[in-house]
C-alpha cells in the first residue's frame, strides 16, 4: 500500500490536519504518526495474549465491545522492554488507510507527547543506515526545533501479514476423512 498516495488523499480531504503528527516516546527517541490515522489514545488496559504470534504482538484488547489487536512498538523495533508506568498508553490507529472498513489496531508506547505540525519541507527522507535497520516503516525524519521525530508509516508498522510466519496463518478445517 503506497502510504504517500493515501496521505495525499487525506491531505486533500482534511488540509488543516494533513501535516499534523502525534508524537510519542519510546525511551528517549521521539516518533510521530500522522494524526489522520490516529483514532484515540487510551490507558493501558488488560490485554489477552495471542498464542503463537511474534513477540511484538502483545495480544488483543476490548475497545468498547470491539476486539482489536495490540502491538508492542518497542518489540516491533527490537528495543529493550521498558517497565509499564502511568504514562504507558495505547494509541489506537486505523491501519486501513481510510479506505474500506476500519482496521483498528492498538500500539503500546511509553508516553504520548503532543500533536505537532511538521510541514513537508521539514521532513527528510530517512538516510541509509546500512542494511541492519529496516527502513520500510520509516516514512521520513521530521525536523522540529528541539528534536528529530521519526515519522512512521502506520501501514508498514502494523502489517501483520509481514510479521506473522505463514504457517500460523489461516488454515483449513479438516474434512471428515
Amino acid at each position, binding site marked *: 500500500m503506497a502510504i504517500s498516495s493515501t496521505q495525499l488523499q487525506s491531505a486533500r480531504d482534511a488540509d488543516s490536519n494533513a501535516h499534523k503528527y502525534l508524537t510519542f516516546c519510546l525511551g528517549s527517541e521521539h516518533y510521530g504518526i500522522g494524526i489522520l490515522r490516529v483514532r484515540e489514545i487510551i490507558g493501558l488496559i488488560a490485554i489477552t495474549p495471542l498464542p*503463537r504470534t511474534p513477540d511484538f*504482538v502483545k495480544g488483543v484488547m476490548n475497545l*468498547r*465491545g470491539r476486539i482489536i489487536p495490540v502491538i508492542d512498538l518497542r518489540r516491533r523495533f527490537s528495543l529493550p522492554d521498558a517497565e509499564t508506568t502511568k504514562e504507558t498508553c495505547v494509541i489506537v490507529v486505523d491501519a486501513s488507510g481510510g479506505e474500506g472498513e476500519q482496521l483498528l489496531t492498538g500500539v503500546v508506547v511509553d508516553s504520548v507527547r503532543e500533536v505537532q505540525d511538521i510541514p513537508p519541507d521539514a521532513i527528510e527522507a530517512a538516510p541509509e543506515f546500512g542494511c541492519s535497520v529496516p527502513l520500510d516503516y520509516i516514512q521520513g525524519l521530521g525536523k522540529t526545533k528541539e528534536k528529530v521525530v521519526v515519522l512512521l508509516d502506520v501501514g508498514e508498522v502494523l*502489517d501483520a501479514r509481514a510479521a506473522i510466519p505463514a504457517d500460523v*496463518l489461516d488454515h483449513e*478445517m479438516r474434512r*471428515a476423512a
Partner: protein
Amino acid sequence: MRLPASFQTSIDSVAKAIALTDVGDLQGLVALQELLLELAVEAENAQLTAVCEVTRQAADLVERMVFREVEDTSAAMKQLAEAVEFAQRNQLVPDDGVGTPAIPPGNVSAGPPGTIGAWLTAHASISLQLASLLQRSDASTSPDVAREAAELCSALAAASDASGLNECAAICRSVAGTIDAARDANRPLPEQSIKTSLDWLAEVRRSLDIDDAPPASSAVSPAFAAAIDPPVNDNAPDDNEPVIIAAGEDCQDTLAEFLAEAREHLTGAEAAALLLEKSPHDLEQINTVFRAFHTIKGVAGFMALSQIVDVAHVAETLLDKARSGTYTIDHIGLDLILASCDMLGRMVGQLQGGEPPVKGEVRRLIARLVAAAEGRSVPLPTRTVALSAAIAATTKALTISATGAPNSAAETDPPEPDCGLAADPAPAKATVRRTDQTVKVSTMRMDTLLNMVGELVIAQLMVQQDPLISHLTDQRLQRNLGQMSKIVRDLQEVAMSLRMVTLKGTFQKMTRLVRDMQTRANKQIELVIEGEDTELDRNVVEEIADPLVHMVRNACDHGIEGEADRRKAGKSPTGTLTLRAFHRGGMIVIEVSDDGRGLSRERILKKCIERGLIAADRHPDEIPDAEVYNFVFLPGFSTAEAVTDISGRGVGMDVVKRNIEALRGKIEIRSTPGKGSTFSMQLPLTMAIIDGMLVRVGGHRYVIPTLAIERAFRPMPEHVHSILGKGEVAMVRGDLLPIRRLNRVFQLNEGTDQICEGLLVVLESGGSRCCLLVDEILGQQQVVIKTLGQDGYRLAGVTGGAILGDGRVALIVDVGGLMQQAVAA
C-alpha cells in the same frame, strides 16, 4: 438467342463445386469463388444482369467465408445453393419464350408469369443480399446494416406490390418497419425475424415455381397473417444476448434502496401467488401481487430501467384483468406470474452483478403474458400450427425454435374457460395478514448498537460488583441497581433480537421449489410447513438456504417415490414432505422429512464395504443405523452411482454437512425403510453467540464451544499412557484418545504440567476426537463471538475472541483447527 454453352458449363461446374466443397476447405472455397466470378462474367456477357448480380454476391459471400468472417457457414452454403438454383432457373427463362435473354427478367412486366419472374429475380437478389448482410459479424449492432436491410426489405416490398403479391409486400414492409424501429430504439437488428421472413418468402417462391401461378400466394397468406403480428418480433435473433440493465449515474443513490425494496416485493408477490394456487379468486392476494409489480414498475420507470418496466407492466396488466374479474388465474397464469417474479428477480439481480437473463426469454415471457391477458392462448404454439397448415416445409426451423422454448408443452393447453367467476366474485377471506411496520436500518449501525449494549452490560456488571457498592446495604440503592440490571438485560435481549428473522422467507422458497419439482419429477407432493415463525440469526438463515434446497430437492427427487410405486406400497399417491422448525435446548432444529422409501441400509453398507470404509472384522449387522446413514455425508460417497440409483440419497450431502458444520450445527439422519426419512439439522440460534465452556490454563482463560465437548474428567494415572516419550494418550471409556495440552499448543509458560492435576476435556469435531488438558473448568456461559481485528491475526487453534463479564477478552478455541494441528504435529 441461345445462351452460350460456356454459360451452362459454368453453372454446372459451380453447382458441382458447391455440392462438393467443404466449408472448412479453404482451397475449395477459393476455387468456388473463382468459378462464381467466372459465371458472373458469363452472365454479364449473356446480359442476364440479375443472375450476374446474384452470382457476384455469392462470390462475395464465399470470399467472406474464406476469411472466416461468416459465423453460420451451413446457412451460407444453403444461400449459395439457392443462388445457383436461381441462376439455373433463369438460365431456362429464355427457353420459356417469355422473354429474351436480352431483356433481364426483372424488366418483364407483362403477364402473370413475367410478373412473377420479376418478383423471383428481385427476391433472389434481395434475399441473398439480406442473408449476406446478416452474416456480417457486426450485423446486430451496425446501424448501416440495419439501414441497408430496411431498404432491401422496402425494395422487395415494392417488387411484391408490382407483382401483385400483396401478402409478400405486407410482410416485407412489416419487417422493414421492425428493423427501422429497432434501429431507432438502438436495439440490435431483429435478425431472427428477417431470417424467418426470408424463409417464408423462399417458400412462397418455391410454391410459385411449382404452381407457376400467382394464386399460390393466397395459400401462404395465413402464415403471413400469423407472422405479421406479433411473432415477427418474437423469437428474434438476439435471443441469446443478455439483457443489460444499468441504472443511470444519477440513480446510484436510490439503486440500493430500489433493489432491496424490489426483492422484498417479489418475495411477497411470490408468496401471494402461491396462495392463489389454492384460491385463485382471493382478491387480497391478487392485489398483493399486483401492488408488487406496480411498485416495481413505478420505481423502475423513475430510474429509467425500461426492461424492468416492460416486464412489470405486462404482468401488471394480466393481474389487473384478474383483479377486475375478466381473467381467472389458472395454472398457466400462475406459472406466468411466477415466471415474471423470477424474471424481475433476475433483472434486479443483474443490477447487482448477477447473471442477466437473455433477451429471448424476456421477449417470450412478455409475449406470453400479453397473450394471456388478451385471452388468447400462448402465441408460439399457435403460430406453429398455423404455419404447418400453410407451409409444411417452412415450419421446420420455426417448430424447432418454438418447441425449444421452455414450458411449451404447458402453453399448448389453452387457458381454461372463465367459469364460475360471476358466481364467485373473489371471496376475500378474513385471512388478512397483520404485518408489523418495519424500518430499514444499516447493518453497521445495528452492529454498533449491539456492541454498545454489550458494553453497557459489562459496565453495569462492573458497577454492581464494585466492592464499594456491593458492600452497601442501602435498600433503595439495591432496588435501583436491580431495576437497572433488569432494564439492561431486557435491552440486551431486544438488541439481540434485532438480528433475528423468521424462517418464513426461506420456507416459502421451498414451497416454490416443491411446486417446481412436482412438475419436473411428475409426482404429487404435498408440502407441510411447521414453525415457519421460528426466529434465527439473519446470517444463519442465509446460510441455511442452500443446504435446505439441497435436502428438499433430494427428498422430492429420490425420497418420495413415483405415484405407481406409492400405490404399490400401499401409500397415498400424494407424497408428503414436511419442513419443521422448532427450538430444542437453546438450538434451532430444522427437519426435512418425507414419507418416501427411506434410505437403503443394505446399499450403503455394501458400498462402504466395497470402499473399505468399515473395518473388516466388524460385522455389518453390528453397526448402528445412525453410523450407517452417516456414511452418505462422506465426500465422494455421494456420487457413488449404486447408492444414488437405489436410495437416491447423498448427492452432495458432504457439502450440506460441511455448510452446517460451518454454522456450528449438526446434522443427523433418521430413516425407516419404506416409511421415509428425516434429515434433522441442529443449528445455533445465532452465528454471533455460542454456548461456551470457560476454562483456565495458568492465568489465561479460554472458551471452548460446548457443542464440541463430549465430557470432561479428572484423569487417574492409570488412564494416561505415554507413547515413545513423544505423545500421550488417555483411555476414555475403552477408546484411546490423543492428549493435547492447551498450554503447549498455545506455547504458554504457565498451566499445570501434571496431567492428573488438571482436567481432560474430550473434544469431538469432524468425526475425530481428542483430549485437551486444561487446569480447570470455570463454568459455562454464552459468549458473543468477535473477530480478532485484522485478518492477519486469524490464528490456527483460535476462532475468535469473546468479551467476558469483567471486560477482558478470552480466546475461543477452534476445536477443528486443534485437531488438525494434532494430526500435523
